[in-house]
C-alpha cells in the first residue's frame, strides 16, 4: 500500500508540472511567426485576405493570446483537448488514432534494448577485458555514435532494396486486407527495422550501464560470501548479482521513455509510420496548437505512467525503497 501512496503523491505532484509545461509550450509557439491560417494559406497556394479573416475567426484566433490560453486551459480542465485545425476532428480522436504505432514502437524498442543490453552487458562483464567484452563494447560504441536516421536508411537499403526481406516503410500492408493473426505478423514485420533503428542507441546505453553495474556488484562483499559458500558462478550471477545490478537499468527506463518519444519523430519519418512523433512535427509546421498541446499532454501522461511502473519495479527489486517511501 505504501508504494501506492508514494506513487499517488508523485502523480499529484506532476499535475502542476504538466500545466507549466503546457503553458510553456503554448507561449513558445506564439514566438513562431504565423498561425495555422498562414500555414493553411501556404498549403493552398494562395488566397485572399477576407478568407483569412473568416478562417481566423473560425479557429478562435481572433482573440488575444492570454484569452486563447485561458480558453484552452478552461477546456482542458473539463478534459476537452479541443479541435484539431489540420484534421478537422477532436484532438483526442486524432491522438488516439496515432497512439498505437508509437506505443508499439516504443515498447518494442525499449524491450529490445533492455533485453539485449542486459544480456550483452552480463556477457561483457563476465569476460571483462577479454575478446567478447572488447567486441561488445566496440559494437556498443558504434551503435551509440550512429545517427538513427542514417542507420534507418541503411537498413532499408540492405534489407528492403537489396535483400527484399522486409518492407521499406509503412505500418501495415495495404495491398491486401488482413485480420487477426496474419495482421499481427504483418505489422510485426513492418516494425522490425524501425525497432532496430530506434532501439540500437538505447541498447548501447543499457549495455554500458549493465556492464558497469555488474562489475561493481561483482566486487561487493556479499558476492564474495556467496562464492565462498560454494555456489556456482551461474547461481551467483542470477541469484545475487543481477537483481542488484538491475536497479540503474530500471532507473534509465523511466528517464528514457521521454527521450524515446523524441527519437521516434525521426524514425517515424524515415519509415513512414503514422505515429505521435510525426504528428507532433506536422502540428508544429501547420501551427496546429491544439494538437501539439494535446500531444505534449499525452506524452507527459505516458512518461508519468512509465515512471509509476518503474517505481513499482523498484519496490520489487529492492524492498528497502518502498520501506523508505
Amino acid at each position: 500500500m505504501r508504494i501506492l501512496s508514494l506513487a499517488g503523491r508523485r502523480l499529484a505532484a506532476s499535475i502542476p508540472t504538466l500545466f507549466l509545461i503546457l503553458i510553456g509550450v503554448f507561449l513558445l509557439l506564439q514566438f513562431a511567426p504565423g498561425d495555422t491560417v498562414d500555414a493553411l494559406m501556404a498549403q493552398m497556394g494562395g488566397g485572399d485576405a477576407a478568407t483569412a479573416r473568416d478562417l481566423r475567426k473560425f479557429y478562435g484566433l481572433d482573440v488575444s493570446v492570454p484569452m486563447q490560453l485561458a480558453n484552452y486551459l478552461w477546456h482542458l480542465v473539463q478534459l476537452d483537448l479541443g479541435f484539431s485545425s489540420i484534421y478537422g476532428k477532436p484532438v483526442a480522436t486524432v491522438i488516439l488514432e496515432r497512439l498505437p504505432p508509437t506505443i508499439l514502437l516504443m515498447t518494442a524498442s525499449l524491450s529490445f534494448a533492455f533485453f539485449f543490453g542486459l544480456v550483452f552487458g552480463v556477457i561483457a562483464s563476465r569476460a571483462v577485458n577479454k575478446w567478447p567484452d572488447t567486441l561488445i563494447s566496440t559494437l556498443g560504441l558504434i551503435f551509440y555514435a550512429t545517427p538513427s536516421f542514417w542507420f534507418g536508411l541503411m537498413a532499408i537499403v540492405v534489407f528492403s532494396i537489396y535483400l527484399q526481406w522486409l518492407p521499406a516503410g509503412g505500418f501495415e500492408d495495404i495491398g491486401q486486407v488482413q485480420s487477426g493473426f496474419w495482421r499481427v505478423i504483418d505489422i510485426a514485420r513492418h516494425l522490425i527495422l524501425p525497432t532496430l533503428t530506434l532501439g540500437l542507441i538505447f541498447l548501447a546505453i543499457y549495455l554500458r550501464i549493465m556492464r558497469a553495474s555488474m562489475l561493481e556488484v561483482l566486487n561487493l562483499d556479499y558476492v564474495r560470501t556467496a562464492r565462498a559458500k560454494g555456489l556456482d558462478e551461474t547461481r551467483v550471477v542470477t541469484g545475487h548479482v543481477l537483481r542488484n545490478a538491475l536497479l540503474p537499468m530500471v532507473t534509465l527506463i523511466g528517464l528514457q521513455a521521454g527521450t524515446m518519444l523524441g527519437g521516434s519523430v525521426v524514425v517515424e519519418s524515415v519509415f513512414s509510420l503514422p505515429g505521435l512523433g510525426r504528428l507532433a512535427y506536422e502540428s508544429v509546421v501547420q501551427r496546429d496548437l491544439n494538437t501539439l498541446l494535446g500531444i505534449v499532454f499525452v506524452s507527459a501522461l505516458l512518461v508519468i505512467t512509465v515512471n509509476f511502473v518503474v517505481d513499482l519495479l523498484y519496490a520489487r527489486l529492492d524492498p528497502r525503497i518502498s520501506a523508505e517511501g
Partner: protein
Amino acid sequence: MDLTRLEINRRTALLTSAAIAANVINPMRAFAQETPKKGGVFNVHYGAEQRQLNPSIQASTGVYIISGKIQESLVDLDADGKPVGVLAESWESSTDGKTIAFKLRKGVTWHDGKPFTSADVEFTAMNMWKKILNYGSTLQLFLTAVDTPDPQTAVFRYERPMPLNLLLRALPDLGYISAKHLYENGDIRQNPTNLAPVGTGPFKFVKYERGQYIIADRNPDYWRSNAPYLDRIVWKVITDRAAAAAQLEAGELQYCPFSSLTISDMARLGKDKRFVATTKGNEGNARTNTIEFNFRRKELSDIRVRRAIAHAIDVPFFIENFLGDFAKLGTGPIPSTSTDFYPGAGTPQYPYDKAKAAALLDEAGFKAGPGGARFSLKLLPAPWGEDISLWSTFIQQSLKDVGITVEIVRNDGGGFLKQVYDEHAFDLATGWHQYRNDPAVSTTVWYRSGQPKGAPWTNQWGWEDKQVDTTIDNALTELDAAKRKALYAEFVKEVNTELPVWMPIEQIFVTVISAKARNHSNTPRWGSSSWHDLWLSA
C-alpha cells in the same frame, strides 16, 4: 539545355537506332505497339498531406494529385496543351464575351449513382469557385450568374468580357465540379465529403487513413468506355524524401510526382533502367525561381540597385552546378513552356556582370565602405524546396562580391508567408512563382498594385506602376487572342524593365516513374490529370 535529356539517354540504351529517331520527337510513341493491359495497383508518393481534398475549393497540386482522379473538371488539356472537353463537350462565347455557354456530357453519373447535371455546375461555380477557391475568386470575380436552361447546358454570365481562351486555360485547374446534392446543406468548408471525395471520375474514393494512405478503386460505371485500366491507386504518405526514394527502389512505389525526391536521387534514378525521370508531362506546372524586392527599403526602391543585384548573380553557373538538367535560364514571369504567351527573348535581361553591378551601385550613391561593404539586406527564402535553399545561399555569396551583405532568415511555410506577405518584414525574399497556363490566373497578381495586405503570392512589395496596372487590366478583358498575347508581351517588357520581382530561373517539375507505366506524362498537367488511360505492363 534539353530538359528531356535524361529520359532520352535512358532509352537510347534500350532501343534500336531506328526507334530513337521517332523517340526524340515523341518518347511515348515507342509504346504505341503494345496492347493495354487491365489491372494492377499504382502506388504514388504523397509527400505533404492536405487538410481537405476537394479541388473545387482548393487549387493546389497536392489536392489534384488525389482528387483529380476522382473528381473531374469541365475541360482539361490535351497532349498539345489545347483545351479538350471532359465534363463539358463543347463551348461557345457570345461576341461581347459576356456570355459563355457550355454543353455538358450526357449520361455521366456521380459515384453515388445520382446523375450529373448543369445544376451541379451552377452550384459549384457560384458557391465554391467564386467564393472559396483560391485563384478562382479572382478569375470569377465578374461572374454574375450561371443559367441552367436544361440539364445539359450551363451558361456563364459575366459583368465584363471574359476571354474564352483565358477561361479555357484556367478551367483545367479551376474548373473541378462538386456534387450539389452533397454540398447544398451546411458549411461547404466543413463538409465531410471534402475528405471522402465523390466525383464522376475514373476512380472511386475508398479510404483515407491519415498519416498512412489514401485508396481509390476503379469506377466500373465510368463514362469513358473501357477506362480506366488500373484496379486501384494508392497514395502513400511519406514525408521523408530519402525514404520515398528507397520505397521506389524497393518496388513499393511506382510514381514520385512533382520533384518529390531530392535532386541527387532524381538524377541517380533517371540513370536506372527500372525508372524514368522526366520533366515531360509537367509543362503545365512550370515554376520560376524569384527574387522579390521590398520597395520599403530605400536602397531597393532605387532601380539601379535592383538591376545591380540581378547583374551580380551568375545564374547559368548556378543552374549548371546545382540544378543540372532540371532547370534552365529564365527570362521573366512568363516561362518559355507557355506557347500561347511566351513573349520571346527580346525583353530586358540582366546577364552576369559584376563590374556593371558595382558601377550601378556606385551610381546609386552606395559607395563601397571599408572592406568593400556597401549595405546589408535580410533575405527570406521560402521553405518549399531544396533549390530555393541553395539559391538563397548563392544569392548571399554573389551579393557579398559586390559589397552587399545578406543575412538569410529561414522560416517554415507559415512563418515565411506571414513575414513576407503580411508583415512585410523582409528586404529580399525568394521562392517559386507557379505559372498556371494563363498569366491572368497566376502571374499578373504578383505585379498588379492594390492587392490587400496579407494575401500570399501577390504584389506586397510596395511597388506601384500605373502603366503596368493598365496593361494588366486591358489584357484581362481582351477577347482577341493575338491582341492578348501582345499585351502580355508588353507586360513582360515593362516589368523586366522596372524589376519589382526578378524571375531568372525556369524549372519544370520532375516525374520519377516506374518504367512499367504506360500512357504516362502524355498531357502538360499529367500528374494532376485523371489517369484514365494509364496502365502497367507486365
